[in-house]
């Protein structure tokens, strides 16, 4: 025969429906002859009925629902898009690829297109960076740190990220540092920084070098430039990290790292409209 102590200790599993039929039978036999345990069980059941059974998960906010719906649509289209892209690239490479590349004359940047894997990873990085940029601009991803000088933000990131995070100095008043957060490009954790250049939003993503190397991008040209969904994306590696800038202002985004009067080599033309 089950004693009170054992019966009470099995109260939660009993009410949760987790006991075997045999164990349930033992509990029920006990409470049938034990008023104290019967009362405890009744209270527990009443508590469940009054509160627990009526608990529901917190509803997802409407904006989240909308963004998830959009994401689900993109997930499917992304796969189809990727298949279309692979088919397109195969046809270029297998057919008149080399000649076409020369005719188009995109120079060094076009070397990227001759490598399917490179193009895919570049496209994925650009796509992820643009998506994050849009979220940052729309304040869907709030900053972890803001209203601080870049150096203070740099220290903040260095304490939290296990790679070399160097924020550029503000070399002109035309450039303003808005804030930053730890974010993700695909599944890679990055420092995401928001700037304003001449009133235009610019995002800078600093990527761990090992993740950047996995992209297998060639060393030259040093700056990979792609145009994606109407945004200018510049990707390069420097000082043990990868960098990606997303903006709508083309070369002017170079003010992120260079003074206005600094003479710069021109960026290559966009290698692809992804």
């Amino acid at each position, binding site marked *: 025969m089950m004693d009170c102590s054992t019966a009470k200790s099995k109260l939660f*599993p009993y009410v*949760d429906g987790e006991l075997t039929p045999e164990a349930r039978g033992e509990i029920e036999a006990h409470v049938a002859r034990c008023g104290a345990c019967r009362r405890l069980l009744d209270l527990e059941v009443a*508590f469940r009925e009054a509160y627990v059974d009526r608990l529901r998960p917190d509803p997802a906010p409407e904006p989240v629902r909308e963004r998830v719906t959009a994401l689900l649509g993109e997930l499917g289209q992304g796969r189809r898009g990727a298949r279309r892209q692979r088919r397109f690239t195969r046809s270029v490479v297998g057919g008149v690829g080399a000649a076409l590349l020369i005719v188009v004359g995109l120079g060094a940047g076009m070397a990227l297109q001759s490598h399917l894997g490179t193009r895919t990873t570049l496209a994925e990085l650009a796509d992820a960076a643009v998506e994050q940029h849009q979220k940052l601009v729309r304040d869907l991803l709030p900053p972890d740190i803001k209203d601080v000088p870049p150096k203070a933000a740099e220290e903040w990131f260095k304490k939290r990220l296990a790679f070399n995070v160097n924020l550029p100095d503000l070399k002109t008043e035309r450039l303003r540092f808005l804030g930053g957060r730890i974010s993700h490009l695909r599944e890679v954790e990055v420092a995401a920084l928001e700037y304003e250049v001449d009133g235009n939003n610019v995002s800078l993503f600093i990527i761990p070098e090992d993740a950047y190397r996995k992209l297998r991008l060639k060393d030259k040209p040093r700056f990979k430039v792609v145009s994606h969904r109407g945004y200018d994306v510049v990707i390069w590696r420097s000082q043990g990290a990868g960098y990606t800038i997303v903006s709508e202002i083309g070369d002017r985004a170079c003010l992120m790292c260079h003074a206005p009067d600094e003479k710069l080599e021109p960026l290559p033309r966009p290698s692809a409209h992804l």
Partner: protein
Amino acid sequence: MDSRSEFQDLVHQYLDSLYNYAHVLARRDAEDLLQESLARAYGGFPAFDRSQSFRPWIFTIMRNVQIDRLRRRRLQAPEQPLEHEKEAEPVASLDNPLCSIPLAPEDILLRRETVEQVREAIRHLPPLLREIVELRDIEGLSYREIATIVSRPVGTVMSRLYRGRNLLRTYLVEPRERPGEKGIGVRNDGL
């Protein structure tokens, strides 16, 4: 119905649960975690065993995504349940669920708390216990399903559930006991 539509339907059906669990795991990064988890789950959906329940499957993915995120971040976040799992804790079993007796909810019933007050008290539980209470009492998952999600034995789940429920009752009877609570009443900031 194709695989993509099936996935979309399931996500929409359980979106509140998914968002809620993402919030338990990642708080302010909940939406980021949700989106990353959906992307990973979609990739694995063709291999999903349709004879199994969708929620435990995708919850497991979400938790793994969060573990990966924390590993990458190498950041000890005190509020993260995943960071507390090295704690020594009593383990129960179905044969010997627990050595002590659960708190009777009589006082709570007499106080006529509202469901929202109970919900708010759950939000104040320590993350490790809150996760289990949410999965069992709000999502209605079985001990075994929860054990699979959190990669712990059923006995550990039972133990955490027991501790979580008892602490919840303590909070409901004595709201001052809640962390961060300065008086009777509930916080409105959700966490």
